[in-house]
C-alpha cells in the first residue's frame, strides 16, 4: 500500500472482559480530533468471537464500528488477531491505524505491521500532524532521556501504538455511527496459542510492576494507615524502607532497596525516608521522585525531583484532601 491510500482513520478497540481497555477510548478521542483536521472518517474496529459491545464504543463518536468475529477469536492470540485485522485492513485501505500500547495491543501491532509490510511507531507519548497528512509520533527512548519524532512517509496504513494515559478519553455522548459485523475467514492453523488458564490480578503484591508507589520510612512513626489511603487514592502500592519493615509496620515483601525490591514506577512518593544508598538504589529507576522529609539535609533530596521540607502529617492530610474522592 502506498501513501495515497485513504480509507480513513482506524482505531483498534481492544476488548477486555465485557468492555474495552481505557486506552482504546483515549485513542478514539484522539482519532476524532485528528479526523476533523484531516476530513476523514473514524472507524473503531473490534476483534472477538461475537459482536455486541459496539454500543459502548458508539458513545465516543466514531463514524463506523466494525466488528470482526469468529469463534476462534474468543481470546487474544497475536497470530489469529493479526490475520483477522490484517485482512480487513487490506480490503478497506485505511491510511492510519491507532492501537493502545497495552501488552496485547503491542503483541498484535508488531505482528500486523509485518503482515501489512508497513511502518509502526511504538509507544508514542504524543501525536501530531506534520502540517500535511502525515502523523509524527513522539517516542521516548534511552531511559526516557531522549524523544524521537517518527513518521512513516511512504507506506500505509501508518501504524501507531499509544501509551495508555497520555490522551484523555472524551466524555460519553449520544451514540453515533453505524455498526457492521463481519464474519472472519479463519481456520485452526491460523491460531498460534490457546489459553489454558487465567489468573486475575489479585491481592498478590508486585512492586516491580507498580506505576505508583507511596513509600513510608522511619519518619512516619508507623502511621501507615494514611500511607495506604494515599496509595489507594493514587491507584498505587505501598512500599517501605528497611526500618519500617523491621519495625513490623509493613510486610517484608514491600521493602524497597538493595536487599529488597528494585522498582521503576512512573511516580514514587517517598515519605519520611532519610535516603541511605541501600534504599535509593531501589527507586533510582523511577520516572518522578517526590520526597517529603523534615530534615533539609536528608540525602533523599539528592534523589528527588521535588523535595518538600516539612512535617509529614499535615502534608499527607492536605494531599489527601486535594485528591478528593472517597
Amino acid at each position, binding site marked *: 500500500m502506498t501513501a495515497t491510500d485513504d480509507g480513513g482513520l482506524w482505531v483498534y478497540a481492544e476488548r477486555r472482559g465485557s468492555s474495552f*481497555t*481505557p486506552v482504546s477510548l483515549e485513542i478514539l478521542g484522539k482519532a476524532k480530533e485528528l479526523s476533523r483536521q484531516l476530513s476523514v472518517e473514524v472507524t473503531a474496529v473490534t476483534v472477538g468471537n461475537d459482536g455486541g459491545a459496539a454500543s459502548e464504543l458508539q458513545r465516543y463518536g466514531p463514524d463506523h464500528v466494525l466488528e470482526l468475529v469468529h469463534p476462534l477469536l474468543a481470546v487474544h*492470540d*497475536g*497470530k489469529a488477531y493479526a490475520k483477522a485485522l490484517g485482512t480487513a485492513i487490506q480490503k478497506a485501505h485505511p491510511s492510519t491505524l491507532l492501537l493502545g500500547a497495552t*501488552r496485547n495491543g*503491542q*503483541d498484535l501491532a*508488531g*505482528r500486523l*505491521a*509485518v*503482515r501489512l509490510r*508497513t*511502518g*509502526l511507531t*511504538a509507544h508514542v507519548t504524543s501525536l501530531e500532524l506534520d502540517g500535511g497528512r502525515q502523523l509524527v509520533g513522539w*517516542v521516548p*527512548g*534511552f*531511559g526516557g*532521556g*531522549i*524523544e*524521537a*519524532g*517518527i513518521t*512513516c512517509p511512504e507506506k500505509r496504513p501508518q501504524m501507531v501504538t499509544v*501509551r*495508555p*494515559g497520555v490522551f484523555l478519553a472524551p466524555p460519553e455522548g449520544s451514540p453515533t455511527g453505524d455498526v457492521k459485523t463481519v464474519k472472519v475467514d479463519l481456520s485452526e492453523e491460523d491460531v*498460534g*496459542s*490457546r489459553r*489454558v*488458564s*487465567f*489468573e486475575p*490480578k489479585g491481592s498478590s503484591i508486585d512492586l*516491580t*510492576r507498580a506505576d505508583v508507589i507511596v513509600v513510608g520510612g522511619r519518619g512516619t512513626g508507623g502511621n501507615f494507615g494514611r500511607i495506604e489511603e494515599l496509595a489507594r487514592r*493514587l*491507584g498505587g502500592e505501598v512500599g517501605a524502607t528497611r526500618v519500617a519493615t523491621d519495625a513490623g509496620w509493613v510486610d517484608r515483601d514491600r521493602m524497597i532497596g538493595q536487599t529488597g525490591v*528494585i522498582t521503576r514506577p*512512573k*511516580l514514587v512518593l517517598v515519605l519520611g525516608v532519610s535516603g541511605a544508598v541501600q534504599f535509593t538504589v531501589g527507586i533510582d529507576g523511577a520516572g518522578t521522585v517526590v520526597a517529603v522529609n523534615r530534615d533539609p539535609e536528608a540525602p533523599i*533530596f539528592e534523589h*528527588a*525531583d*521535588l523535595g*518538600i*521540607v*516539612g512535617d509529614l502529617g*499535615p*502534608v499527607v*492530610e*492536605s*494531599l489527601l484532601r*486535594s*485528591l478528593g474522592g472517597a
Partner: protein
Amino acid sequence: MHIVVCMKVVPRPEEVKVDLATKMLDRAGARSVINSSDMNALETALAFRDAHGGKVTVLSMGPPPFEPYLRVALAVGADEAILLSDRAFGGADTLATSYTLAAGIRKIGKVDLVLCGEESSDGGTSQVPPSIAEWLNASQATYVERLVPGKHGTVHATRVLEDGKETVELSVPAVISVVVGSNEPRFLDYDRWAFAQSAKVQVWNEKELCGDPQYLGLKGSPTAVAGLREVKKAGRRRETVTVTPDEAASRIKAEIDRAKIARS
C-alpha cells in the same frame, strides 16, 4: 529443543546524547551493555535447556564490536553464537530488524523456540518479537515470565498482562518475549571463559544471509526519524522547597498530573 535467543547490545542510556547541531544521536564513546531483558531471555533458555535438554544459540545483529558480548553469552552458558553483521543491515527499524533476525533464524534451520527480551532499553518498542513471529509464520507469546514444556511437543507460557496472568499453550516453532526481571540471570562462568574466547562466533553478512535486499536495513525501513529532542537532563531535578502543607499538596498534585499515570 533448539532455542535461539535474540540478544541486543545497547548503549548505556546515560551516556547517549543528542547532538543539538545535527539532531542526531551521539553514541560515540558510550559504553554498551547487553539489553537487560535479553539476559532474562537467555536465563529462561538456559534453564529450559538444563531441565529438558537441547541447545541454546545466541543471535545478534550489529557491527563486529558486538562480538565480545556474544562471547559473554557463551561464557554464561550458551552453546553457539551468531552475529549478523553487514553495513546493509544498518539503519534498520523494527520491520527491517525483525526481517533480518528472522532470516538468520531461517538460515540456522531447525529452531523450536525463539526467545527475546520484552523490549530494548534504547528503542523500547517491544515490537521485534511479534514481528519475527510473523516473518516466520510461528506462534507467539509476549511478556512471558514462565516457560515449561506442554503435551505433544507444545510449550506452556505464562504471560503477564495488565489484568492478570494468562497461561497459553503454544505450538512450536514459537517466538516468546520474556518479561524483564522475571528471573535472576546466572552469572558468567569463568571456567567456560577459555571455551567462550576460542569458540567460533559465526558472522553472517548480507550475502550469506540470503535475504531479500528490499527488506534489509535503511531501505527496508518504512519509518523515518523526523526529529530528536532531549526531554530531561541527566539525573534528578533536586528542587527542594519549604512551603505550607497546602502549597506542598498542590505541588505534589502537579507532579502526579505530570507523571501521566494510566488506568491500563
